[in-house]
């Protein structure tokens, strides 16, 4: 049934090239995307529907309807109508503009041009008109329009290079190759137009690294895999052109499938408010019922006799019906507990805080002229409650720039060293050694110039440009170049380098490629002298096992050096070589050939052979490359973890790289008791690994079946005793994308989460964009904690969208992350200020605001309840209508807004210096059920004082001229005046940071109150509108009576004094950290202005870093087969070479950067000479 209903549910996709009619049968989605929500027609209904889904709006609508019924209306209808319409309109305008921009960006994307093969020629077509099955042509540096099957390209063998940064965040180039049958098509339009292959493949899905399908063409079947597919969102690099056939278009593309749905984000305070509104409504209903019953009884007992003066004229009413009507009337009167102005004020406050973020000079990055930007204005206080930060790695924590920093050659360290004072001192001079002809040093750089997978290319200006696959390799080759060993060019059989000015060509005899097990790569070359050498570089632990035993001394020395480098967060790599004799090599080569020719167990055989030859190595030394962190990352991370914020790294990168960066930026430390690595490939393996990790964590004596319960319990316990029952020490968890997939799909998800909760840090590597979002969702769902995701690329979009708060790093190439984010700034380090200063303040202010606002409105409204007992429960308001209308929007709105926007408990500097101050937000201590209860009690107390003191005083009193003053109007004015004064005094007590604005607003409000009072009570107003202003002259008579002022004074004293007492005792008995720091701040202010004292210590650690080759296996094969070598002599037939060679790719930029940094290092040496 379900299937039949969902006809579109694809099981398999069948696409025929160049045949639109055929493909139309399947009704595949076209290439148009729309992320917008509304169009002109649907805007009003959908938007209104969405808005009235908010509890508050629905509540006010309900009240408005009630007020329109004359029988029960006790307040005029416009008191609710005008503000409600205003609020709805404001929100609607905001939504409309947002959607307008979405339309615009959709249009921009949809209208991009691409060349489509139609009617046997290339035609320009908008992206949105591209259909499944079309063949399109892409040029260098173009965005890919849809998911394509690569048919042919300008490069030999149908290769093409793509950058997938938008998809998975990896910036290294990836290679795709076309099937050989299709790559023969080349750029021959007529042949391409005749291409009529049919692709049968999987249905659209979100797996970026998997594709299975079959191409049937000319009665031959060709299997297709991910290597043949170019995904939408990629950028074509270093490839002149390519042709591809559209397989998935628009919403079916993997990019779109990976982008989570745009969700309307709410803060936890918002959600809490929704609950509170319901509670309050329940409370109102209770009050209403009490009063309604009272009314029924009163009408029955007293009102019946009183009816001669006030009979019921219409129909047959009885006391029960009267009670029923009274119930609704009181609901209307008492609704001011949650006035609309509350919501408006909250929005205004958040807007103010957003502006403060935009204006913050300390979050402005002058390097790229980018100020911080609050793109969403509704989440600010959530910034003060963050518990989990999910960070992307590349571009967020790191700059994605590799620099060759140091090396150890033959037991000597070269490069700059930071001594304790942080000054750079040279210890040896590398250039000198090279000049002097130290053979080891020369061999070292020769190795760096020879043993790699870099491709070189001369651009138009004759500059040598390297195409690197991984930036670290680029850094090494560039370093060698700067020290005089320039890698010039390579062919499948040779490598040419320029050694200190002389060209030397090495014969490449064998290429022992990298893979994850080997963790090393080697080349075997024959130098011009005929010597055969094996050059090897790789992870130190692996390589050290292969050394000649006689190298023990050097090994331990180098090992120490590597530890030292690693301690500074550098990526290290051991370098070794071996001299081979001809005969031995020939034998080995023969065996390799045999191995290659064999069919079964080929890989094992080859691996054995590699092992065989890579032994008895002579150690040359080690290199240390810095994967440059963004500025201030370490300080930020340290400070955030002091603030009890857990930082998780979610990256598409490899495990080694991720761990390395984890150490580099102090997320992982050596102090940690254990680091669990989960990298199992199957569900059972993962389960086993998790179980082991947990056993390790707790010791065997505990069982963990009740995992989640534990987790939550612990959270509560953390308040009182830190980790008393459970984990002592710090742990970290490292999990692989594949294992994560198993963990998330199966029932071990909870175990994983439990383990992750216990750990201080979690690093997830090799995760897809969607997995990033899933991890965030997992934490969100089970931990009820506020999550923040920060990232820079398109691969972070789904995570940014699904976290409570998404932060985008702006100033990068792609804009997707920023567009999807709620906040954006240019540097990771600003996160510290965003959270610890802006977030903390926002939360603090919002909580204070809410406390005061509820207090104020309870005090204001409940007076009606008390009065009900004295006015026959007749729904008579205590104050006059004008006061009720203006109280929340004029008399008391601005001071509380000023407090909500400007208040500060401790200074920004102290917020940064004492990250522990952040904790109340995470535990939600400042506004929770308890606080709300306290503020309700406070409000009730105030309302009692405000009502009963005047009541007692008015009971039997006469004015100074003997006239009675116990009339309703004087009573109303007295109550209103004391209420305004009491809440203003309370405001003054609550405001802890009195700026000029607070002064103006607080005093101004009181003055305004009296001005309006005198106006509405003036003769003139009464003369014009006698029915609207019946309080004429009241203020003159009431407020000139001494006894009324005495009443007001007593009311104020009685309602404020207890508060002062409780506050004083609270600070005295249970001072919070913020109180202590305020105290300190005060004493220090008197003494001297103080600077931040935190010293920026470098991490010192003894950890051995396993080098992460940031590139993939298989490049060696490409090189030796010569597939990726450009055929130099015959120029490509299409005349595209210009674009080809003019193109400056990102990689080249990168190389330049690396060159710059390294050359500066080189220059330093020269100066020393």
């Amino acid at each position: 049934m379900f299937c039949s209903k969902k006809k579109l549910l694809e099981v398999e996709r069948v696409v025929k090239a160049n045949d639109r009619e055929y493909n139309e049968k399947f009704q595949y989605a076209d290439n148009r995307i729309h992320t917008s929500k509304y169009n002109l027609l649907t805007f009003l209904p959908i938007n209104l529907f969405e808005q009235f889904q908010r509890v508050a709006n629905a509540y006010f609508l309900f009240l408005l309807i009630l007020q329109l019924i004359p029988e029960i209306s006790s307040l005029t209808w416009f008191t609710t109508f005008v503000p409600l319409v205003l609020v709805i309109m404001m929100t609607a305008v905001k939504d409309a503009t947002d959607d307008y921009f979405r339309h615009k960006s959709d249009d921009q994307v949809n209208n991009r041009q691409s060349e489509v093969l139609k009617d046997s020629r290339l035609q320009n077509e908008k992206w949105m008109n591209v259909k499944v099955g079309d063949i399109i042509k892409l040029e260098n540096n173009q965005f890919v329009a849809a998911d394509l099957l690569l048919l042919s390209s300008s490069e030999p063998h149908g290769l093409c290079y793509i950058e997938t940064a938008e998809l998975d965040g990896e910036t290294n180039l990836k290679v795709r190759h076309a099937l050989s049958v299709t790559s023969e098509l080349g750029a021959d339009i007529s042949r391409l137009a005749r291409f009529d292959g049919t692709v049968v493949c999987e249905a659209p899905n979100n797996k970026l690294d998997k594709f299975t399908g079959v191409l049937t063409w000319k009665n031959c079947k060709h299997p297709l895999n991910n290597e043949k597919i170019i995904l939408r969102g990629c950028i074509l690099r270093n490839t002149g052109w390519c042709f591809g056939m559209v397989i998935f278009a628009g919403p079916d593309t993997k990019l779109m499938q990976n982008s989570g749905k745009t969700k309307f984000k709410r803060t936890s305070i918002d959600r809490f408010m929704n609950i509170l509104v319901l509670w309050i409504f329940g409370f109102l209903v209770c009050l209403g019922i009490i009063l309604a019953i009272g009314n029924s009884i009163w009408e029955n007992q007293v009102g019946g006799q009183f009816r001669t003066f006030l009979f019921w004229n219409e129909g047959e009413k009885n006391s029960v019906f009267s009670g029923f009507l009274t119930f609704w009337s009181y609901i209307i009167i008492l609704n001011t507990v949650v006035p609309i102005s509350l919501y408006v004020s909250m929005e205004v406050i958040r807007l103010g805080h957003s502006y403060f973020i935009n204006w913050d000079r300390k979050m402005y990055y002058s390097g790229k002229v980018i100020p911080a930007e609050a793109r969403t204005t509704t989440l600010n206080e959530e910034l003060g409650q963050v518990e989990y930060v999910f960070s992307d790695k590349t571009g967020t924590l790191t700059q994605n720039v590799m620099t060759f920093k140091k090396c150890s050659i033959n037991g000597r360290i070269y490069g700059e060293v930071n001594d304790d004072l942080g000054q750079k001192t040279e210890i040896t001079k590398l250039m000198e050694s090279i000049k002097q002809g130290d053979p080891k040093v020369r061999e070292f750089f020769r190795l760096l110039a020879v043993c790699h997978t870099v491709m070189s290319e001369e651009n138009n200006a004759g500059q040598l440009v390297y195409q690197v696959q991984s930036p670290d390799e680029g850094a090494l080759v560039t370093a060698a170049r700067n020290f005089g060993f320039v890698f010039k060019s390579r062919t499948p059989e040779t490598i040419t380098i320029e050694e200190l000015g002389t060209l030397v060509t090495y014969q490449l005899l064998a290429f022992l490629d990298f893979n994850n097990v080997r963790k090393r790569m080697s080349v075997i070359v024959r130098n011009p002298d005929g010597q055969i050498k094996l050059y090897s570089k790789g992870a130190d632990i692996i390589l050290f096992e292969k050394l000649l035993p006689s190298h023990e001394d050097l090994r331990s020395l180098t090992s120490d050096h590597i530890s030292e480098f690693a301690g500074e967060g550098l990526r290290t790599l051991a370098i070794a070589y071996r001299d081979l004799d001809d005969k031995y090599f020939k034998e080995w080569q023969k065996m390799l050939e045999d191995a290659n020719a064999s069919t079964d167990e080929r890989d094992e055989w080859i691996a054995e052979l590699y092992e065989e030859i890579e032994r008895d190595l002579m150690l040359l030394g080690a290199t240390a490359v810095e994967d440059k962190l963004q500025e201030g990352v370490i300080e930020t991370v340290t400070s955030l973890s002091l603030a009890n914020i857990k930082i998780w790294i979610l990256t598409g990168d490899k495990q080694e790289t991720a761990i390395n960066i984890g150490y580099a930026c102090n997320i992982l430390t050596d102090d940690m008791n254990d680091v669990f690595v989960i990298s199992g490939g199957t569900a059972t393996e993962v389960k086993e690994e998790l179980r082991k990790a947990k056993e390790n964590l707790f010791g065997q004596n505990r069982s963990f079946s009740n995992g989640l319960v534990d987790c939550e319990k612990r959270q509560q316990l953390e308040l009182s005793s830190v980790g008393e029952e459970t984990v002592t020490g710090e742990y970290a968890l490292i999990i692989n994308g594949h294992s994560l997939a198993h963990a998330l799909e199966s029932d071990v998800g909870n175990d994983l989460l439990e383990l992750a909760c216990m750990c201080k840090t979690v690093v997830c590597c090799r995760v897809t964009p969607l997995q990033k979002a899933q991890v965030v969702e997992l934490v969100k769902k089970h931990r009820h904690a506020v999550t923040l995701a920060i990232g820079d690329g398109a691969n972070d979009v789904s995570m940014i969208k699904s976290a409570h708060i998404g932060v985008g790093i702006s100033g990068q190439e792609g804009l997707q992350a920023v567009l999807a984010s709620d906040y954006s700034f240019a540097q990771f380090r600003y996160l510290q200020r965003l959270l610890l200063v802006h977030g903390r303040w926002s939360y603090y202010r919002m909580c204070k605001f809410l406390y005061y606002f509820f207090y104020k409105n309870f005090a204001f409204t409940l007076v009606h309840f008390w009065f009900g007992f004295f006015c026959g429960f007749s729904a008579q308001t205590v104050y006059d209508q004008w006061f009720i209308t203006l109280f929340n929007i004029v008399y008391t709105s601005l001071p509380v807004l000023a407090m909500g926007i400007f208040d500060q408990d401790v200074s920004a500097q102290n917020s940064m210096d004492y990250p522990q101050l952040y904790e109340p937000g995470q535990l939600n201590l400042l506004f929770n059920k308890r606080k709300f209860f306290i503020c309700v009690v406070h409000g009730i107390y105030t309302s009692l004082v405000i009502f009963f003191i005047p009541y007692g005083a008015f009971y039997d009193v006469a004015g100074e001229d003997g006239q009675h003053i116990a009339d309703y109007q004087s009573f109303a004015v007295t109550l209103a005046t004391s209420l305004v004064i009491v809440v203003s005094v309370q405001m003054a007590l609550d405001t802890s940071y009195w700026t000029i604005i607070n002064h103006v607003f607080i005093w101004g409000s009181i003055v305004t109150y009296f001005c309006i009072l005198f106006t509405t009570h003036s003769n003139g107003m009464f003369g014009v509108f006698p029915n609207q202003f019946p309080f004429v002259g009241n203020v003159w008579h009431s407020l000139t009576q001494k006894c009324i002022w005495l009443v007001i004074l007593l009311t104020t004293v009685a309602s404020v004094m207890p508060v002062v007492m409780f506050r004083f005792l609270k600070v005295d008995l249970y001072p919070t950290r913020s109180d202590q720091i305020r105290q300190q701040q005060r004493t220090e202010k008197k003494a001297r202005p103080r600077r931040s004292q935190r010293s920026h210590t470098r991490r010192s650690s003894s950890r051995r870093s396993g080098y992460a080759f940031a590139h993939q296996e298989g490049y060696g094969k490409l090189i030796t087969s010569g597939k990726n070598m450009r055929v130099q002599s015959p120029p490509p037939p299409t005349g595209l070479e210009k674009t080809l060679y003019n193109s400056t790719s990102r990689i080249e930029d990168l190389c330049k950067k690396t060159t710059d940094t390294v050359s500066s290092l080189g220059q330093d040496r020269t100066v020393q000479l």
Partner: protein
Amino acid sequence: MERRSRLQLSRLPDITAMKQQQLPAYQLHFSATMVFSIFFASGVFCLFMGIFLILSAKSIQKVEINYTKTCGNCAKLREDAFNHNKICTCSIPFVLAKSMEGNVFMYYKLYGFYQNLYRYILSRSNSQLLSKDLKAVEDCAPFKVSHKEIPFAPCGAIANSMFNDTIILSYNLNSSIHIQVPMLKTGITWWTDKYVKFKNPGANNLTDKFAGTTKPPYWPKPIYELDPDDPENNGFLNDDFIVWMRTAAFPTFKKLYRRLHRIHYFIEGLPAGNYSFNITYNFPVTKFQGEKSVVLSTLTWSGGSSLFLGLAYTVTGAMTWLASFAMLAIHFMLKQRKASTSKWQSKALKGQSRK
């Protein structure tokens, strides 16, 4: 390049105290000294004020006579609406043991009369009372128009239920000589009520001016015949009417009825002696189980203040004192304990942040 620099400038946040959240500010802080001084000061103030108010409330001389039961026969008569034409008077003698000096005010006081009901308060027409439009009765439900669709003047429940007893105080020098105490019926309303809120349709010949309207159903006489003695005191400007129209806040209330005209015997106030109230009993209260009484009272500096305010001040003062002593005790106990631990605490705090 130029464009870039302009862009640079436009995106650069200004360094203003406001935008960088560094406005100069005073940080409100309650130091122990400040709190204690505030508490002690306000405690002292409240206590003294309370005692002072109690004393002055005590100095007020007051006579209240509840005549609901005393004039029981009249009350019964009034319960039957058919007897509204019959006049019922009753006389209540009382002895003033001590003379009431100064200005003496006479009030009537009603118990259990709800002038503060929602529909009751609304049931009046300010436009009519201003004589803007005598026929503007739409707000006056349920007393808008008579059976013959003639609008009431004044309309509405408030006006209709006006208190209409006549109370005359006489001073009985002896059993034969009864002197009627001279009372003023002017100056008992608020100035704004008399001159702004209420207006007659014209200065004279009110009968004509009120043509086209009819008297409220419970009234024996039309609005322009309220005071037969003083033609100025008629129509909407009748003082008793204006006083009644100022609705009371609570079901028990007193309204000013007359004030002593200090001439002849009464130049100093009311001398001690025998008095009697001669009441023409018109206003029915037993119907709604209410009561009514007549009150004679003098004033003090703060008007006719009651004991409550004084008591409330005294209690508040006493509580404030108690609280401040308790706080003082707690504070010093803590201070002693803190002295030993504070050093350690601040150290720990600093250490933590530096870790």
